[in-house]
């Protein structure tokens, strides 16, 4: 046992008479370290500034073409101490990985190493402009190329597009490569097949790229129904978008057969790589016949989630799709020098069929430095251990909960890096939402809820490999407690959370009467 608890102390909560732990009201509305913080617009002023800048001279040169901004803008400022306090107080109302286990299925909320942050801030990475002459940024090109080579090796593919800015952007890149490849052979097709369990970005991406989306049914053990897929394939199907492991946390055993069938029908296979953490270093998706896969650097490769981004979504490509990858990208010539391949020199590098450009400049360099730092830290052996511990942790949770919660696929074998539960057997009118809000009171961010759509009241739990056994055991204890309450029909769960900085918020009001910006008029 690696964290001996010799004193045996455990936190306890003794209920007060009303079960609510309320003392007298405070004059500030604060509760000790839980501090209420007004909006910037309520505490700042347009005159205040926390930066020392000179006042402009009255007769300063003016070449603004008569477009001077005379009207007030309405942007409040604060001094530096007030600014630090404002944002520090706000930060304390957030849950984060640094605080505790973050069981969001499909998000891979693993520890964000601080070495990544240190490296990203080295001036040679942080303080260089993307359009500097090549000889002044060779090291940057080398970082991009080194990461590219690692990702190609880990996936067993042939090329990679580094520029997509996030997973969904990467999906679009992959689908556009497929479309370009089909058009190049004069075989434009109209349909993309997507499993019902897929993440919403998949059909949204396919539709955005001009395709009609059709569902692929699943079979009883939660995987793509291969026979149904085969019977749907035809000359109008451009390809399929498969997540593997899939969103139920299961490995698609028939992946190679799926790829072979799609290729035989003239289509391409796009793999959503969101769940790569389950197999990294142990399995190469390229060996399963895929044509393109995006990799979420902010999932498998530990770059921080940041409260909603930034992410990074490079896309590995097969030989068939390689010629169509977007610009720009890096390439190493025989003399070992790494170059940036853009519109003006693409011809020299034989890359004349790029489908175009997806973003200004080169991609999420700040995420590349972080991800490469992480990959070098783990190495090939460490990454394999990452996948194994991620899968071990998820199965530990699955088996520790299956006596209590409905586990739609647990009988058919192990899960991969995430465990899927459903709301069958909940008492009263309790729902997955109620269980999740009760879990907040226990000190955890809830798991992914109501996804995938194929399981009623789905709860998808992904602990990741950076959780200790003690952390898993504590989480399981809390999860079991709320699951038991849900099955017993404990109606108080409908009012949860009780102890978070806010109770349940009125999302109906927010949507009916959208208030999306501050205004001075009280309404």
């Amino acid at each position, binding site marked *: 046992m690696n964290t001996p608890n010799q004193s045996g102390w455990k936190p306890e909560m003794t209920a007060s008479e009303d079960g609510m732990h309320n003392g007298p009201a405070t004059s500030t509305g604060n509760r000790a370290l839980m501090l209420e913080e007004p909006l910037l617009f309520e505490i700042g002023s347009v005159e205040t500034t*926390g930066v020392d800048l000179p006042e402009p001279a009255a007769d300063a040169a003016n070449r603004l073409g008569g477009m001077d901004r005379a009207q007030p803008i309405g942007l409040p400022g604060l001094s530096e101490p007030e600014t630090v306090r404002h944002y520090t107080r706000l930060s304390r109302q957030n849950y984060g990985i640094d605080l505790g286990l973050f069981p969001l299925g499909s998000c891979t909320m693993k520890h964000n190493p601080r070495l990544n942050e240190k490296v990203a801030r080295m001036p040679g990475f942080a303080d260089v402009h993307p359009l500097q002459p090549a000889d002044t940024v060779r090291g940057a090109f080398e970082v991009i190329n080194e990461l590219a080579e690692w990702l190609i090796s880990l996936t067993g593919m042939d090329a990679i597009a580094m520029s997509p800015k996030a997973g969904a952007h990467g999906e679009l890149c992959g689908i556009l490569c497929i479309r370009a490849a089909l058009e190049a052979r004069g075989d434009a097709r109209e349909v993309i097949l997507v499993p019902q369990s897929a993440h919403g970005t998949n059909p949204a991406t396919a539709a955005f790229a001009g395709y009609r989306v059709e569902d692929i049914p699943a079979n009883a053990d939660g995987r793509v129904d291969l026979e149904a897929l085969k019977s749907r394939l035809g000359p109008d199907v451009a390809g399929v978008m498969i997540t593997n492991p899939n969103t139920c946390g299961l490995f698609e055993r028939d992946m190679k057969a799926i790829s072979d069938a799609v290729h035989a029908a003239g289509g391409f296979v796009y793999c959503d790589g969101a769940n790569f953490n389950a197999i990294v270093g142990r399995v190469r998706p390229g060996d399963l016949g895929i044509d393109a896969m995006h990799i979420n650097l902010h999932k498998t490769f530990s770059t921080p989630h940041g409260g909603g981004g930034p992410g990074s979504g490079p896309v590995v490509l097969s030989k068939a799709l390689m010629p169509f990858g977007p610009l720009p990208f890096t390439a190493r010539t025989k003399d070992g020098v790494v170059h940036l391949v853009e519109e003006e020199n693409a011809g020299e590098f034989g890359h004349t069929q790029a489908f175009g450009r997806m973003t200004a400049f080169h991609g999420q360099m700040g995420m590349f430095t972080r991800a490469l730092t992480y990959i070098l830290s783990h190495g090939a052996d460490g990454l394999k251990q990452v996948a194994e511990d991620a899968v071990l942790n998820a199965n530990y949770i699955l088996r520790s909960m299956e006596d209590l919660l409905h586990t739609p696929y647990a009988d058919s074998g192990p899960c991969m890096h995430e465990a899927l539960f459903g709301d069958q057997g909940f008492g009263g009118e309790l729902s997955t939402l109620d269980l999740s809000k009760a879990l907040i009171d226990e000190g955890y961010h809830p798991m992914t809820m109501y996804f995938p759509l194929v399981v009623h009241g789905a709860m998808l739990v992904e602990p990741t490999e950076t959780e200790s056994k003690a952390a898993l055991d504590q989480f399981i204890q809390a999860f079991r407690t709320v699951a038991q309450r849900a099955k017993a029909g404990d109606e108080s769960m409908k009012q949860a959370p009780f102890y978070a900085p806010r109770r349940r918020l009125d999302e109906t009001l927010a949507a009916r009467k959208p208030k999306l910006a501050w205004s001075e008029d009280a309404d």
Partner: protein
Amino acid sequence: MRYLPLTDNDRADMLATIGAASIDDLFVDVPAEAQLDGPIRDLPMHASEMAVERHMRALSKKNLAAADAPFFLGAGAYRHHVPASVDHIIQRGEFLTAYTPYQPEIAQGTLQMLFEFQSQVARLYGCAVANASMYDGSTACWEAVAMAGRVTRRNRAVLSGALHPHYTQVIKTMAKFTKDEIADAQPSIQGAPDADGLIGRIDDQTSCVVVQYPDILGRVSNLQAISDAAHEKGALVITVVTEPVALGAIQAPGDLGADIVVGEGQSIGVGLQFGGPYLGLFAVRDKKHVRQMPGRLCGETVDAEGKRGFVLTLSTREQHIRREKATSNICTNSGLCALAFNVHMTLLGETGLRRLAAENHRLACVAADRLAKVPGVSVLNDSFFNEFTVRLGQDARPIVRTLADRGVLAGVALDRLYPDVAAFADSLLVAVTETTSEDDIEALATALEEVLS
């Protein structure tokens, strides 16, 4: 390994609980032929922090950082001084390691910050509503074109010739697949942009007119005439702002008739970082267009105890609900960069932003006057904010390289952005910010004098 807390004892205990003999049993669904028999060959094994840091530092040292040279590059990414507090705040674990605020009760930090962010962007842009950020200015620009198509139900976008060529390329790439028709052009190399030329290209099939402000050559012009012409034909006006600090000195696009304002937020809070991650800004002047906006939106509401709080709202526009009918496929956006923008903007305040803009413009005027004195060099622009175009009379690209070898980062040769246009070969884009000293300006001028003679 330092990021893996499980010990071999833990692993054994857990396998026993699961009822598996070894970890391989948990990978039983992976076909044997796809399973690797050990760590991938020819790849390095794990390394200590020290070793990794050494490797990465060596790579970073091969790059010339902007702080180590007189620096004049812009063209859509600008070097400003980011106050020290910003980096400390964005590295707080509660911000850095938080997720998208889908569970609002424990994400009020992120949500309130986003509400403040949206409000500040809207005011800066002269608009009613801004979203919670997009990947960057170029993709935000494409999303605006797509939105204009949805709103007007037309599919012909007219792009100003003086729009950043990367932005133009992104739009043209995406439009290939959505079947939008894109009418682009090249910038005119003259002191003021060719507004009449742009107006002449608008017809009653136009969905939108896309115009950059200040434009790719740094020129500032009055967009009202273009807005009037577009609206008369039923088209929307999309204004693109790649340098938001400019809006501390020049009028807001929303006040000049822009319907959608998009841009790059990188100048405020987010460093150069060799091109990313950056911060896409997206706002609509009239709130009637809100439901057609892409991206996340944060709104105000109350909780069950009547306390004010914030939530993501109008989610039915987004991919996770609307799937193939979503307004965009965007999921992850640029939350931490939005926080950085927020913190920097808070430290500036309106007074600070105006002073910052004034200082940028003052130094740009000093630089323009000094460079105009270099024999053979002329300044093209009638107007500019903190970036202008100079004509060198000789090919700019090799001169930029020569100056870089001498430790001067002289700006962006226009040829780098328009490699096929001979008429642009002698032009150089020069950006000047508050981080540029008068010594830097003198160093650039002197170096040019030497190289051009």
